């Protein structure tokens, strides 16, 4: 017994020393790009879509044949410490030329400085917090921030309907949804809409009746939901149950099939400002959505689309790069020409953020369509 325990222990010690070689050598091809996603843990459902999208993107790029690309996708398990370790392994392993990820902005603030000091370019695909790309000269993102999409969605609804008052419900323990609140409040204040109720919730909540009952009592014309997909689905369902008639508006977090799959018909009429539309009629997107459905038996969400776009961006960046070193890849990203992606024609701003205003969508019969 005792010796077997020691053997076990020795195994783990050995495994630890062995995993210095973690980044797998690209099976075929010229360039490996690391990817750090939260495939398990609290943010697992977002990282899962990202993994799927990136895998699909890898196949797509390699089929095009302009560059041979392989993604080394690793799971950070929604643990900041693990994301940090993966970034360090990638930046020092000498095998990857860039890193895609991490899933959460709160991870990015801890991981991206590591890449910055190693001169490794980072492409965030779901980091929406303010200041992420300011972390360093090679930190990029292809995700439109809430600041870019939410004001448009609010404006569209205010222009179309009669809106004098609004209420906000948002997750106050999450950087993304807290940003939602800041952005929405600023936009509503600018339009002189009176905010009659502000409610918060916590990550993982499923019961929103208390907050929504308070909101219902304030009877707002518009209800802004600062939430990620799962919580948003519950909020929309609860609001429907309680008979709240306000126009519901949300940001990127609501651009997910879960919003209608978790709330049934209740989601009809929800207006979403987002970076990507599942029904966008560009050929690349139609092809992507179809392939995704075939391979993963469900609709892609925005996380998956932005991951796929990351593959399309890397294809162009690597093709144009002078050499496949982190430094040249970074330079190539800085000088990247607009690329056709599933997100539409994509380019970086001078601040390395995604350019564009996004789209305003509305749920109708359980589908997102243009508002």
């Amino acid at each position: 017994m005792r010796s077997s325990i020691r053997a076990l222990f020795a195994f783990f010690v050995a495994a630890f020393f062995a995993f210095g070689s973690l980044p797998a050598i690209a099976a075929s091809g010229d360039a490996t790009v690391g990817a750090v996603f939260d495939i398990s843990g609290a943010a697992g459902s977002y990282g899962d879509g990202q993994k799927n999208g990136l895998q699909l993107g890898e196949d797509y790029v390699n089929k095009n044949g302009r560059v041979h690309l392989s993604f080394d996708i690793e799971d950070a398990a929604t643990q900041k410490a693990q994301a940090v370790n993966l970034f360090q392994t990638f930046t020092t392993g000498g095998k990857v030329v860039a890193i895609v990820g991490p899933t959460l902005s709160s991870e990015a603030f801890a991981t991206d400085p590591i890449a910055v000091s190693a001169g490794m370019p980072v492409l965030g695909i779901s980091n929406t917090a303010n200041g992420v790309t300011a972390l360093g000269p090679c930190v990029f993102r292809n995700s439109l921030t809430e600041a870019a999409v939410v004001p448009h969605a609010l404006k569209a609804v205010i222009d179309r309907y009669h809106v004098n008052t609004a209420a906000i419900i948002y997750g106050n323990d999450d950087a993304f949804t807290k940003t939602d609140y800041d952005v929405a409040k600023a936009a509503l204040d600018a339009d002189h809409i009176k905010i009659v109720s502000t409610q918060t919730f916590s990550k993982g909540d499923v019961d929103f009746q208390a907050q929504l009952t308070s909101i219902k009592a304030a009877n707002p014309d518009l209800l802004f939901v600062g939430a990620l997909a799962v919580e948003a689905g519950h909020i929309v369902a609860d609001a429907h149950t309680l008979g709240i008639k306000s126009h519901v508006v949300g940001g990127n977090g609501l651009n997910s099939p879960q919003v209608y799959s978790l709330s049934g018909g209740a989601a009809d009429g929800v207006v979403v400002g987002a970076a990507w539309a599942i029904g966008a009629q560009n050929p690349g997107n139609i092809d992507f959505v179809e392939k995704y459905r075939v391979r993963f038996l469900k609709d892609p969400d925005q996380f998956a689309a932005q991951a796929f776009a990351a593959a399309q961006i890397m294809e162009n960046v690597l093709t144009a790069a002078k050499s496949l070193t982190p430094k040249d890849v970074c330079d190539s990203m800085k000088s990247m020409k607009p690329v056709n992606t599933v997100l539409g024609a994509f380019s970086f701003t001078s601040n390395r953020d995604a350019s564009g205003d996004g789209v305003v969508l509305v749920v109708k019969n359980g589908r997102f369509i243009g508002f």
Partner: protein
Amino acid sequence: MLAQQLVNGLFIGSVYALFALGYTLIFGVLDILNLAHASIFMLGAFTTLVLVLKGVPLLLAILGGALAGGLLGVLLDRVAFWPLRRRQAGPLAPLISSIAVGMIYVGTANGIFGPDVRHFPFDVVRTPTYTIGPVTFTLAQLTIFIASLALMAGLQLLLRRTRLGAAIRAVAENPRAAQLVGIDLESVYAQTFFIASALGAVAGILFALTFNAVSSVMGSAVELKGLAVIVLGGMGSIPGSLLGGLLIGLSEDLSVAYLSSGYRDAIVFAILFLMLIIRPTGLLGKRGLRTA
């Protein structure tokens, strides 16, 4: 609005109470804080979901989920607590081993079902909404409220009126004395785990049906709340867990309505903390299970 908030609080509180019932039963009988209870809550919901998706009628699927939960509870006892009981380990080891089994259960669900949130087909869970005066609720909520009360009453009857109940109470009072009068301790422990875990699973199933969401991390929503409930009501007390559950549910809703939603959970924990300082035995916990 007050009326609606009170109703909201009672609904969610009854689910907390049902979840806490298993916690409190196991604590009353074995003096163990079973932190794997939340994972059984989750696996019960998944089992029912899988059965429903396979076409099993809802009621049967709920029974199946409860059965699976009960068996998982017995398994939990065998692998995590029984070996420690045999060597009379201190109170710390079972706490850790229950965390370990919780990780295994959650990890298994994560492995099989992935991290996505799953839901029941809408034709299964869609229920009519009623509005009575200022109060709106769904049939599902009402059913869950009544089912929770009924299950608690049933457990109370079982403890008071049956041979098994008498044996459980005797073991809770004094295991050694119970053994002397011919009670098979291990069998009582196993049955206690079955009942407690089946109740935990039912709580998970009802929770999943009300909010129509099943995920591997759903247990974390009730894990700490359940602790608050049993402390407030009194460790080991069945009526206490009902009272505690309803009070926690109400205090959540009322703190959202009249104080601040941002501090909702802080208020719950502050109540918990004060209760422990002022009256560690809880509201009804003076004699615990012994007077159940």
